[in-house]
């Protein structure tokens, strides 16, 4: 919101009365074309930034990442009752993978939100990758050499 306010200030919008009409925003191409037809003298200096379809390819990765995050979340959700009702090696390794990936991506969002600056971000993300890799390795090691995640929880709960 603050970014939109700043943009309109730079572009000489007069008062907040017409703020939302005069605010330049990122709009799909067909909407921008419609707005250009309605230009009035008060529009001076405003800039229309719109994405053309050919420039969408850069944001595809982000969209794919978002969808993958939700898929892993649903998978992990399903693995919880599966671990209780049908504990086995396959569920153990699936849990290890889903847990490691879900926490890696979740902590990645936290890093993106709170770590500012190019260098710090890169370092934090590298550290996070190391931690997630180590966690996954540890869980797989536990599944292979020890009782496995499902059995471990069952044993812990019988205490």
């Amino acid at each position: 919101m603050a970014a939109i306010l700043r943009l309109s200030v730079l572009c000489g919008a007069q008062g907040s009365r017409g703020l939302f009409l005069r605010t330049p925003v990122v709009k799909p191409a067909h909407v921008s074309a419609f707005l250009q037809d309605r230009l009035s003298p008060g529009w001076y200096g405003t800039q229309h930034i719109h994405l053309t379809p050919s420039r969408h390819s850069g944001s595809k990765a982000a969209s794919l990442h978002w969808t993958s995050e939700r898929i892993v979340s649903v998978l992990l959700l399903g693995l919880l009752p599966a671990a209780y009702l049908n504990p086995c090696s396959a569920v153990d390794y699936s849990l290890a993978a889903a847990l490691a990936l879900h926490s890696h991506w979740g902590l990645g969002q936290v890093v993106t939100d709170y770590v500012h600056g190019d260098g710090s971000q890169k370092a934090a993300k590298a550290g996070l990758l190391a931690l997630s890799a180590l966690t996954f390795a540890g869980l797989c090691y536990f599944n292979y050499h020890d009782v496995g995640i499902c059995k471990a929880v069952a044993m812990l709960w019988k205490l």
Partner: protein
Amino acid sequence: MWSHPEPSPIKIVLTSRHAGRHCLRSHLSPQLCIRSWSLPMMMSICHRGTGMALSGGVSLFGVSALLLPGNFESYLEFVKSLCLGPALIYTAKFALVFPLMYHTWNGIRHLMWDLGKGLKTAHLYQSGVAILVLTVLSSAGLAAM
């Protein structure tokens, strides 16, 4: 038409930052001093907090499996040898399962939002309270198992 001039956008932004300057001094977001705390805001913070705590726990478990000597059973035997009272064991189980249940139920609520459902303010508060009740009940139930 207007009885008094509307404040310019830049005034709005600067006033908000000024109102939240106490928070800026502590290197916190000024939003924390401006916005009145609400249930959705608290629950969102808790969702992140429980997520980070759970991740920490899972990582601790994974790294311990790689570094610590002995197998899982030996550590369980050690805990059994402490002869902890049933009340303490129940409390410990509750403490373990509470953040997991909160994060799971609230996670389902997040997925519903991603589908575009339940985004009205009234629904936000209703689902929030429902989640809290579900969390307490499911945690109590699982800890008793």
